[in-house]
């Protein structure tokens, strides 16, 4: 057991944790993790204790962002499926309604994800980090979904359809990577609204009700 105040988890991980927690939970949850880290994990795991701490923080980050990431990933996979199974003719310079709908659905997802995260954490940084994780995780989920779809449908006709709608590289990493800065930018705009609303309605007060 170590009560040594110099025994600290990675500073960046602790900042990330506090950034992603609601004001009501910020002290108690980060305190619980610090206490467990110092009293149980460092004595048991030594140098690997930091990895344990980072894993725990990852759990909170994922929990806060997964619904938005799943929605973003679902929109992308849905689009690829539609383009592959029910292809339409895209003409350069003319936006097809399918592209417009998908683009706005993604923008709404990133903006609402950033807004919601900034609202619940009462922090702009929480919303921006949330938007980044949502975009990156959503992209990873869309890549995974694409691979799963390919595992199910991979006949020559399907390959021709995929090549005709942008190619496999675009679906696997082109679009997910391209969307990261877009998602962060749109999420930041959403986070600004969320943070403003949190300030107006004062959600930053910790929950101190007595039992």
């Amino acid at each position, binding site marked *: 057991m170590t009560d040594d105040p110099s025994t600290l988890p990675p500073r960046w991980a602790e900042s990330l944790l506090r950034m992603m927690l609601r004001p009501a939970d910020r002290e*108690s949850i980060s305190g619980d993790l610090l206490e467990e880290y110092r009293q149980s994990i460092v004595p048991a795991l030594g140098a690997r204790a930091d990895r344990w701490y980072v894993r725990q923080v990852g759990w909170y980050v994922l929990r806060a962002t997964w619904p938005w990431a799943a929605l973003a990933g679902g929109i992308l996979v849905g689009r690829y499926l539609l383009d592959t199974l029910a292809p339409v003719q895209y003409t350069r310079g003319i936006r097809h309604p399918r592209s417009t709908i998908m683009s706005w659905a993604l923008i709404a997802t990133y903006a609402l994800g950033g807004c919601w995260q900034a609202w619940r954490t009462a922090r702009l940084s929480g919303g921006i980090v949330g938007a980044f994780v949502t975009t990156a995780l959503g992209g990873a989920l869309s890549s995974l979904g694409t691979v799963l779809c390919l595992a199910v449908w991979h006949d020559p006709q399907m390959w021709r359809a995929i090549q005709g709608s942008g190619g496999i590289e675009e679906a696997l990493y082109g679009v997910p990577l391209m969307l990261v800065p877009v998602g962060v930018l749109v999420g930041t705009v959403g986070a600004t609204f969320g943070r403003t609303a949190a300030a107006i309605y004062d959600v930053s007060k910790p929950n101190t009700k007595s039992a």
Partner: protein
Amino acid sequence: MADVLGAFEQAVLLAIVRLGDDAYGRAILKEAQARLDRDVAAGAVHATLDRLEHKRLIVSRLGSGTPVRAGRARRYYRPLPAGIRALNDARAAVDHIWRGLKWPLVKARSFA
């Protein structure tokens, strides 16, 4: 009929009952890990506590911090009557399902 509790919710709620006045986040985590005999993510316990509080089965209050927590407050939990009812219902449901069977079960008959 009170809320239907999942197995993990029961473990967390029972940990609160067992710990009494010392039921705060980390203590509940340790108790749940010991009773379930497996590693449990702190986030899973905190998410469950949040859900149980949202269902009004438990209530919480902030306590004082300690040096090992860098002075950060502990959040203490205690069960509400609805939480105790939910635990009793969960136990009664399991007892009812098992009634008439000897435990542990022996090998099931085959369809030979």
